[in-house]
C-alpha cells in the first residue's frame, strides 16, 4: 500500500512528491498518462514570483496586494497571503535542489540575493525569478532529477480513470495502464491530484498541450468533489492564427502593431491584456482578420530582438514576418477554476484526497491570474500539499478494498472496443473546440452560452455513436484521446453553466449582456456539484 500517490508529473506533482519524501512518507508514487516531463510546466517561460527585492525594493505585502488586485475581489485572501509569504522559501528550496536561476551581480553575501528578477504584467516591481527563457522547463527537470535521487516510483503512462471513494474517504485509484492495455487498481493512504487544467477543451484555439484535458477535475467531480470558478478562462492576445503557437508579449513590447486587413490600427498595443483581447475579438466579430505587424521594425532589428519568434512564425505560418504581417488570434492559455479545496488543499467531501496546481481552485488567482503566480502556486502549494498528505497518512489504517471496482472500469473500456470502426470521434473534438471558442470565448452572452450548452450536451450524448478506430489494447493512443474527450465533454456543460449563472463581467469572464461588475450579487464563487452516477 502506498503512503502517498501523486497523479500528474508536472511541477505541482513533483514538488508534492518531494515534499512528501521530506515529510517522512516512505512509499510514494507518481502516476501520469504521459512519460514524465511531458507536461504543461515545460512551456512556462516568464518566471516565478517571489518578493525577494533583489532588483527593486519589494515586500511580501506588495505581492499580496498585486495578486488580490488582479483577482478582482475573488481571491481567498488567506490563501494569497500563504502563497506569497511562502514564495521566498519556495525559491530558496528550488535553489537548494539546483534550479539554474538567472543571476545578477551583487555584493551581498547570500545565495538568494544573486537571483535575477524581471517585470511581468500586473506586478508593481520586478518580481519574477526566471531561468533564461525556460523557467518552467528548468524547474521541472531539476525536480525530476531529485525524484530519481530519492527513488520515487513512477507509474509510467497510467491514465486516471476514477477515484475509489468509500464512506467519504479515498481508498485508491483506478488507472488505465496504457502500455499493457489493462485496468489497474492502486491503493494508497492519501492521493494528490496534480493533473493540470482543462485548456485543451478549446481544441485548435489554445496554446495548451493536447492532453490538458482536465482528467483529474473530471474524476474528482464524478467522485463527489465540488468544482468552482470554472467560468474564468484566461486568453492570451497573440496566438498564431493557424497553429495557436504563442507569440510572446515582447513582440508588442518592441513596437509591433496590431492591425486589421486594411492595415489600420485599432487598439493601444500596450494596454492591459484583457483590453487588447477584447478589442481584437470585437474586430474579428465584425469579420475582420487581425494581424501582428512587425515589418516597420526592419529585418536587422527583428533578427536581433526576436530570433525565436521569427523562427516559430516562419515555421508554423509559412510567412516571413520581415515582409508580411502575421495572422493572429487570441487563444486560451490558462484555466483559473478547478476542484474546490479547503485551506489544507484537501477536497472537503473526499477525505485523504488533495488537489494542487491548475486542476485545483485554491482561489489565489480569483477572476484573473497574475503572470508569474502559476509557477509559484505549483511549487509553494505543491510543497505544502505533500506535507499535508503525508501527515494525513498517520491516521489511516491499512485497509483493503472490498469491492471489485476494476471490473466495472474494465467493462466500461471493453464497451468502447465493441465497435471501434464507427465514425471517428476526432471530429467531435474539433467541434467542441470550435463551439467553445465561438460561444464561450472572450465575449459571452446569454444567447451564445445557451447555444453552446445545447451543442455540447448534444456532443456528449452522441459520443457513443463514434468509434476510436483502433482495436489494439496496448498503446492505444486513440483510446487515451477518446477518454480525454469524454472527460472534457463531461466538464463542458458544467463550466458553461457557471458562465451562464455569472451574470456580470469580472476579470477573464466578460458578459456583453452584463458588462459591469456586480459585487452585490456575484462577489462569490460558483460551485458545482455532480449528480450523475458514481462508484460506491
Amino acid at each position, binding site marked *: 500500500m502506498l503512503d502517498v500517490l501523486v497523479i500528474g508529473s508536472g511541477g505541482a506533482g513533483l514538488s508534492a512528491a518531494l515534499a512528501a519524501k521530506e515529510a517522512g512518507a516512505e512509499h510514494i508514487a507518481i502516476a501520469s498518462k*504521459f*512519460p*514524465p*516531463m*511531458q*507536461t*504543461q510546466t*515545460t*512551456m512556462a517561460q516568464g518566471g516565478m514570483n517571489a518578493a525577494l527585492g533583489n532588483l527593486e525594493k519589494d515586500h511580501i505585502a506588495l505581492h499580496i496586494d498585486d495578486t488580490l488586485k488582479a483577482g478582482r475581489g475573488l481571491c481567498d485572501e488567506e490563501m494569497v497571503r500563504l502563497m506569497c509569504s511562502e514564495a521566498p522559501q519556495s525559491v530558496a528550496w528550488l*535553489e*537548494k*535542489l*539546483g534550479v*539554474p*536561476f*538567472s*543571476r*545578477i*551581480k*551583487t555584493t551581498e*553575501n*547570500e*545565495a538568494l540575493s*544573486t537571483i*535575477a528578477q524581471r517585470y511581468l504584467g500586473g506586478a508593481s516591481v520586478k518580481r519574477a525569478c526566471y*531561468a*533564461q527563457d*525556460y523557467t518552467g*522547463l*528548468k524547474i521541472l*527537470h*531539476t525536480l525530476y*532529477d*531529485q525524484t*530519481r*535521487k530519492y527513488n520515487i516510483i513512477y507509474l509510467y503512462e497510467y491514465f486516471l480513470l476514477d477515484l475509489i471513494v468509500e464512506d467519504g474517504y479515498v481508498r485508491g485509484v483506478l488507472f488505465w495502464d496504457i*502500455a499493457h492495455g489493462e485496468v489497474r487498481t492502486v491503493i494508497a493512504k492519501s492521493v494528490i491530484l496534480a493533473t493540470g487544467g482543462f485548456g485543451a477543451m478549446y481544441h485548435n484555439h489554445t*496554446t495548451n*498541450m493536447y492532453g490538458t484535458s482536465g482528467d483529474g477535475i473530471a474524476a474528482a467531480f464524478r467522485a463527489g468533489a465540488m468544482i468552482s470558478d470554472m467560468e474564468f478562462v484566461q486568453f492570451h492576445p497573440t496566438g498564431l492564427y493557424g*497553429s*495557436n*503557437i504563442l507569440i510572446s508579449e515582447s513582440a508588442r513590447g518592441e513596437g509591433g502593431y496590431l492591425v486589421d486587413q486594411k492595415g489600420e490600427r485599432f487598439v493601444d498595443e500596450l494596454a492591459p491584456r484583457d483590453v487588447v483581447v477584447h478589442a481584437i475579438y470585437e474586430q474579428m466579430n465584425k469579420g475582420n482578420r487581425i494581424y501582428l505587424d512587425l515589418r516597420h521594425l526592419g529585418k536587422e532589428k527583428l533578427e536581433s530582438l526576436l530570433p525565436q519568434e521569427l523562427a*516559430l512564425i516562419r*515555421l*508554423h505560418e*509559412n510567412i516571413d514576418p520581415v515582409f508580411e504581417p502575421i495572422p493572429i488570434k487570441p487563444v486560451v492559455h490558462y484555466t483559473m477554476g478547478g476542484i474546490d479545496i479547503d485551506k489544507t488543499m484537501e477536497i472537503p467531501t473526499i477525505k485523504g484526497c488533495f488537489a494542487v496546481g491548475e486542476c485545483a481552485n485554491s482561489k489565489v488567482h480569483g477572476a484573473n491570474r497574475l503572470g508569474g503566480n502559476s509557477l509559484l502556486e505549483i511549487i509553494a502549494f505543491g510543497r505544502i500539499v505533500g506535507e499535508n498528505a503525508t501527515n494525513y497518512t498517520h491516521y489511516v489504517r491499512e485497509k483493503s478494498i472490498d469491492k471489485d471496482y476494476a471490473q466495472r472500469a474494465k467493462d466500461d473500456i471493453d464497451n468502447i472496443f465493441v465497435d471501434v470502426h464507427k465514425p*471517428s470521434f*476526432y*471530429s467531435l473534438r*474539433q467541434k467542441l473546440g470550435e463551439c467553445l471558442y465561438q460561444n464561450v470565448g472572450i465575449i459571452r452572452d446569454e444567447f451564445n452560452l445557451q447555444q453552446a450548452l445545447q451543442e455540447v450536451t448534444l456532443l456528449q450524448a452522441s459520443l457513443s455513436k463514434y468509434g*476510436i*478506430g*483502433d*482495436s*489494439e489494447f*496496448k*498503446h*492505444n*493512443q*486513440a483510446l487515451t484521446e477518446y477518454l480525454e474527450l469524454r472527460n472534457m465533454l463531461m466538464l463542458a456543460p458544467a463550466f458553461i453553466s457557471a458562465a451562464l449563472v455569472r451574470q456580470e463581467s469580472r476579470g477573464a469572464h466578460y458578459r456583453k449582456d452584463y458588462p459591469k461588475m456586480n459585487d452585490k450579487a456575484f462577489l462569490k464563487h460558483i460551485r458545482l456539484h455532480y449528480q450523475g452516477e458514481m462508484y460506491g
Partner: protein
Amino acid sequence: MDKVLIKMMQNDKETIYKVSSKQTLLAALYEIKETQNASLTFNAGCRASVCGTCAMRVNGREVLACAYKPKEGDFIEPLAYHTKVRDLKVDKRTTLDTLVKAKAWLHHYNETTQLTPKDEYLTERQSDCIMCESCYSACPVFAVNSNFIGPFALTRAYRYVEDRREKSTTYIIDAIQNNGVWDCTLCGECTIACPKGIDPKNDIVMLRTKSVQQGYSDPNFSFGFGTPDFGRDFGFDPSTG
C-alpha cells in the same frame, strides 16, 4: 495545397500517406490520425519544441516532428536504440534510467556558494535540454554497447558537475566511469542531432578532464593496444563492444 507522400513502417508494413508540405510533420501525423488512420501511434505534446516528446527520425536523421516540414518521399521512423512499442512510439523508461546510472542530480548543496552570472552561463546550455533523446538515438556506441550511459545523461551529469552549488562532484564522476565517458567515441553525432544546439560531445570531453583530475585514467590506454583509435571507419571503436 502542396501535397507530398511520406512513408513509414506500420505493423511491419511500409505505409504511404499523402500530407501537406505546408504544415509541420506533427500536424501532418495528427491529420492522418484524425482523418485517415486512427490507429497511427506516436508521442506528442506541446507543438512548440519544448516538451521534447515528438522526436523521431526522418530519412535516418533525428528531428522534432513539431519543427519539421515533410518533403516528398520522406521516410519516418521511431527513435533508434529505444524499445519501439508501436509505429512511431518508443518506450523511454530504459533511456531515462541512464540519468540514474549517471547519478545526475545535485548531491550536496553548498550553503555558502554565491552564484554569479558567469556561473549561470556555465550550465545554461546544458540545462536547455528538453529530453527529446535525439542524441541517444543518434549515438552509434549503442550499436555495440547497450549499457552505455549515453549523451544526454552525461550532459546532465556535466551540468551538475559544473554547478558551483555542488559540494562534491565525486559521486557523479565515480558513477560515469563504467560504460560512461571513456566509451564515447567522440564522433559528434549527438551534437549534430541536438535540436537545441547542445554539445554533448564537448561535455563528455570536459567530463574526461574532470575524471583525470579526480585520479581516473582512460582505461583504453591500459589495455596495451597502443594509441586508442576513436572514430575510425564507422564512427565508433569496434574493440569496445
